[in-house]
C-alpha cells in the first residue's frame, strides 16, 4: 500500500513550496451562517498547519468578496486558496478566476461545499458546524498538495464532417458553410433528404415536405464550401478534437454524370423490387430515382437487386452507366464532427393490431405516402383496391409501452418513452383527410393524446370540429383487430371506451393507421467508432440536457436532430442549428482549451502490462512499443481517472486527483473530532 502523502508534502517543502493556505469561509448572507457556527469553524481551521489566514465574508462570490481573495493572495503571500461556500458547480470557476487575478495559478484552488452539502441539509447547529469543519480541513489538506496546472491547448482543423444527409445534417451543413466553414457531408443512401422527403405535408405550417427539403438541398448543393458524398459508409475513425480522421467507403452509384436519359435506363431495367421510398406500397426497378426532383438527379443502382445484365447500359447512352466501378476509400480530416444520422420509425411486429395480417393495416408513414399526389396511388385514398370510407388511427404503437403488456424489442427492452411527434402528426393527417374527403369517417383510438407543441393543439381542436370520433382505451387492455363476421368491412376493431365509462364497442373500418413511434437506428458502428454514450432508450446522449445540450462527452462531437431522441422537424433543425453554432464557435477559436485533469504515466513504474489500454473508455491509453510502457494521448484523455484505479503498479496518476491529494483529503476527514461546544 502507498501512504506516500507525507513524503510528497515534505518533497514539496524541500522544493521551497511551503504551503501557505488562505481559507475564505462564506456566510452566504445567512444561508450558511444561520446554521453553521462560522466563527467556531474559523477558530478550528486557523490552528491547522499550513494555514496562513482564515477570513470570512458575507458573500465571497460578490465583487468585494473576490477582491478580498485577490488582495489577500498578494498581501499575505498566499500560495493555495480554499473557499468554503456553495457548490463548486456554481462558483468554482468564479473563484478560479479570482485566484488567477490575484496572481496564482487557478488550479491552486480548492472548493469546500458547506451550503448544499451542509447548511441546507443539516438542521442541528452542532452537527452542521462539525461537518463544515471536517469538509474545510479536508479541503485544506488537499489544497496544500495541489500543483499548478495548465489547460491543454489543441489546434483545430478548420473543417467539419457532417454525418447524415437528412434535414438535420443538411441544416447543420448549410449553417456551417454560411459562416465560411468548409463542410463535408456524408450520406449512407444514394440520395439526400432523409425521412423528410418521404413525408407529405408537415405541421405546423402545412407546407409540402418536399418543398422544404428541396430548398434546403438546393442551398447545400450550390454552396461551394460543401462537398456531398452519397452512398458513403463509415469505415474507420481516428484522431480527436481538432483533428479527426474519418475513413469512408464510397460505394459506386452505377450511373454517372453522363447519364442524360435516366428514365430510358430505368425503363430498360428488367429487375423489380420493393420500393423502400414508398415504404413497400409500390415497386421500383433495380436502377432508380426515388422521386421526381431528388438530389442527386442521377439514378442509382441498388446492387443487391442488380443482376448486371447490362440492359440499362444500352438504353442510357454511351458512358452513362459503369457497372464495374470499384468502391473506393477516402480519409476525411475535420476539426469537429456533427452526427445527424436520424432515427427509424417503429416497425410493428407481425400481428400487432393486425399489421402484416391485413393489407388494410398500415403505418402513419405509409399513410403519408398515400396522401401524396406523387405517391403510389397518386393521392387517391384506395387500399387493396377498395376506396376508403372509414379510417381508424391507433396511437402509441411502439411508444409508451407497458411491462407485461408489450413484447420487448430485440434488445429485451420495451419503449417506455413518448415518441412526441406521432400525436400531432395523427391530428394533422386527420385534418388533411377530413378536408380532402369530408365524407370519410375518422375514428381515433388513444391511450393519451399529447399535442404539446406550439400551434399543435390547433389541429386537435380542428379535428374535433370536423367530427372525428375519439375513443380512449385502457393501456392494459388494448383494442383487438379482427375480421368483420358479416364480411361488409375488411376490419373490425373491438375496444372498451373509457370516455363512455367502459362501453364495449365494435368499430368496423376500411383502414387502420398505426401511429408508429420513433426508435433509434442501429448505430453500433458509429457508437463504436466515435465512442458515443448511448442512453437506455438506445438514442445517443448529450453531456447534459440543460447545461451542455447537443455536445457529446467525447470532445468535438456534436449531435444534430433526432439521433438523440424523438424530435419533430422544427426541433431537429433547432438542434442542428445549435450543433452548427457550437462546432463553428469551436473552429473559429482556432484552438481549444481543455481541463487539465488528465492522466499521466510514470514510465519508471510502468510494467507495460496493458491493463490501462482496456480500462480507458476513450482509447486515450496506448503503448509505446519502443519503451515498452504505457503512454496517454493528452488530447483524447477526458480525465475520468479510470486508468489510474486500474493500474496495478500505481504508475498512472491523474493531475488534480493524484493519489496523495485524494488520500490527504480522506485522512483529514477521518481525523479525530474536536469536541464542538456551541
Amino acid at each position, binding site marked *: 500500500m502507498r501512504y506516500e502523502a507525507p513524503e510528497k508534502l515534505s518533497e514539496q517543502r524541500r522544493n521551497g513550496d511551503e504551503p501557505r493556505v488562505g481559507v475564505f469561509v462564506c456566510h452566504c448572507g445567512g444561508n450558511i451562517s444561520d446554521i453553521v457556527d462560522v466563527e467556531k469553524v474559523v477558530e478550528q481551521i486557523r490552528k491547522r498547519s499550513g494555514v496562513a489566514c482564515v477570513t470570512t465574508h458575507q458573500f465571497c462570490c460578490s465583487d468585494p468578496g473576490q477582491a478580498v481573495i485577490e488582495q489577500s493572495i498578494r498581501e499575505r503571500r498566499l500560495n493555495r486558496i480554499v473557499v468554503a461556500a456553495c457548490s463548486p458547480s456554481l462558483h468554482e470557476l468564479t473563484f478560479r478566476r479570482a485566484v488567477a487575478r490575484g496572481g496564482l495559478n487557478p488550479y491552486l484552488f480548492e472548493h469546500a*461545499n458547506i451550503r448544499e452539502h451542509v447548511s441546507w441539509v443539516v438542521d442541528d447547529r452542532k452537527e452542521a458546524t462539525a*461537518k463544515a469543519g471536517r469538509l474545510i480541513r479536508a479541503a485544506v489538506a488537499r489544497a496544500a498538495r495541489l500543483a499548478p496546472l495548465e489547460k491543454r491547448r489543441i489546434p483545430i482543423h478548420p473543417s467539419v464532417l457532417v454525418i447524415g444527409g437528412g434535414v438535420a445534417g443538411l441544416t447543420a451543413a448549410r449553417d456551417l458553410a454560411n459562416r465560411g466553414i468548409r463542410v463535408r457531408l456524408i450520406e449512407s443512401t444514394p440520395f439526400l433528404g432523409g425521412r423528410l422527403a418521404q413525408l407529405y405535408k408537415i405541421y405546423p405550417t402545412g407546407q409540402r415536405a418536399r418543398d422544404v427539403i428541396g430548398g434546403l438541398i438546393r442551398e447545400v448543393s450550390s454552396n461551394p464550401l460543401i462537398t456531398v458524398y452519397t452512398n458513403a459508409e463509415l469505415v474507420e475513425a481516428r484522431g480527436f478534437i481538432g483533428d479527426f480522421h474519418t475513413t469512408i467507403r464510397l460505394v459506386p452509384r452505377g450511373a454517372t454524370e453522363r447519364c442524360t436519359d435516366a428514365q430510358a435506363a430505368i425503363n430498360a431495367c428488367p429487375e423489380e423490387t420493393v420500393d423502400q421510398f414508398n415504404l413497400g406500397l409500390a415497386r421500383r426497378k433495380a436502377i432508380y430515382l426515388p422521386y421526381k426532383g431528388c438530389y442527386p438527379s442521377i439514378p442509382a443502382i441498388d446492387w443487391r437487386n442488380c443482376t448486371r445484365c447490362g440492359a440499362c447500359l444500352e438504353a442510357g447512352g454511351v458512358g452513362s452507366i459503369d457497372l464495374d466501378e470499384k468502391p473506393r476509400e477516402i480519409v476525411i480530416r475535420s476539426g469537429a464532427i456533427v452526427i445527424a444520422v436520424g432515427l427509424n420509425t417503429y416497425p410493428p411486429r407481425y400481428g400487432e393490431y393486425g399489421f402484416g395480417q391485413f393489407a388494410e393495416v398500415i403505418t402513419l408513414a405509409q399513410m403519408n405516402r398515400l396522401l401524396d399526389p406523387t405517391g403510389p396511388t397518386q393521392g387517391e385514398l384506395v387500399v387493396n383496391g377498395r376506396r376508403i370510407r372509414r379510417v381508424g388511427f391507433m396511437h402509441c404503437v411502439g411508444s409508451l409501452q407497458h411491462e407485461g403488456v408489450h413484447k420487448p424489442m430485440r434488445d429485451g427492452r420495451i419503449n417506455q418513452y413518448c415518441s412526441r411527434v406521432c400525436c400531432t402528426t395523427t391530428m394533422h393527417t386527420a385534418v388533411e383527410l377530413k378536408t380532402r374527403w369530408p365524407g370519410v369517417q375518422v375514428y381515433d383510438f388513444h391511450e393519451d393524446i399529447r399535442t404539446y407543441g406550439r400551434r399543435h393543439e390547433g389541429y386537435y381542436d380542428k379535428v374535433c370540429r370536423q367530427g372525428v370520433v375519439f375513443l380512449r382505451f385502457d393501456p392494459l387492455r388494448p383494442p383487438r383487430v379482427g375480421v368483420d363476421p358479416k364480411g361488409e368491412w375488411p376490419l373490425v376493431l373491438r375496444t372498451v371506451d373509457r370516455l363512455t365509462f367502459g362501453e364495449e364497442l365494435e368499430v368496423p373500418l376500411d383502414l387502420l393507421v398505426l401511429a408508429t413511434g420513433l426508435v433509434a437506428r442501429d448505430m453500433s458502428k458509429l457508437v463504436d467508432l466515435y465512442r458515443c*454514450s448511448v442512453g437506455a432508450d438506445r438514442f445517443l446522449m448529450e453531456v447534459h440536457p440543460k447545461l451542455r445540450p447537443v455536445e457529446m462527452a467525447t470532445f468535438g462531437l456534436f449531435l444534430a436532430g433526432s439521433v438523440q431522441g424523438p424530435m419533430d422537424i422544427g426541433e431537429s433543425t433547432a438542434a442542428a442549428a445549435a450543433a452548427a453554432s457550437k462546432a463553428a464557435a469551436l473552429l473559429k477559436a482556432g484552438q481549444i482549451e481543455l481541463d487539465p485533469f488528465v492522466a499521466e504515466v510514470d514510465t519508471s513504474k510502468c510494467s507495460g502490462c496493458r491493463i490501462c489500454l482496456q480500462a480507458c473508455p476513450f482509447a486515450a491509453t496506448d503503448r509505446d512499443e519502443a519503451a515498452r510502457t504505457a503512454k496517454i494521448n493528452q488530447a483524447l484523455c477526458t480525465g475520468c481517472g479510470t486508468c489510474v484505479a*486500474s493500474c496495478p503498479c500505481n504508475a498512472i496518476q491523474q493531475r488534480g486527483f493524484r493519489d496523495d491529494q485524494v488520500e490527504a483529503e480522506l485522512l483529514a476527514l*477521518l481525523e*479525530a473530532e474536536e469536541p464542538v461546544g456551541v
Partner: protein
Amino acid sequence: MDATELRVEPALDTQTAWEPRIVGFLCLWCSYTGADNAGTARMKYAPNVDIVKVMCSGRIDPDLILTAFAKGADGVMVLGCHVGDCHYISGNHKTMVRMPLLRRVLEDFGIEPERFRHEWVSAAEGEKFSRLVSEMTEQVRELGPLDWKARLKECTGENLGPWGGEHP
C-alpha cells in the same frame, strides 16, 4: 497491509458520544450533483457522510476504500452514475466489476459487508441520495464502531483473522 498501517487515532470520547463516520466517494457528474440536488431541495439527512469528490466512480481505487477503513471510517459509500449514464461512457462499468470483488476482500479483513455500500445515484436523484445516506448511517450505527484496535487485540489473542494469526 501490516499492523502499523492499521493504527487509528484513539476515539476521543466514550461510547455515548460515538457517531458513525462514513466516507462517501461520489462521481462529480451524477452523484455529487445529486447530492447538490438534495441540498437545493433542502432535504434533511444524517450529517455522518463526508463526501470525497472524484471525476468518475471509475477513479475510485479499491485501495482508497481500504485506506478509509484503516484510518477510522466506520462505513464507506461509493456512488456513481447509473449504468448507461456515465459521463465517460463506461467508467462506471469498471466500478461495477470492482466493487463486488472489493466486498469479498473486505469480508476477508473481517469488515462486515454492511459497512460498504455501492449504489447508482443520478444528478436528479437528490431524494435517493438523502435516503441512502440516512439508511447507511442507521445501518452503521447498529453495527457500532469499526474499532480496529479492539479487533486486532481479539485477533492476535485468539489466533483469528485472515491469516490464522500468522502474519504472512
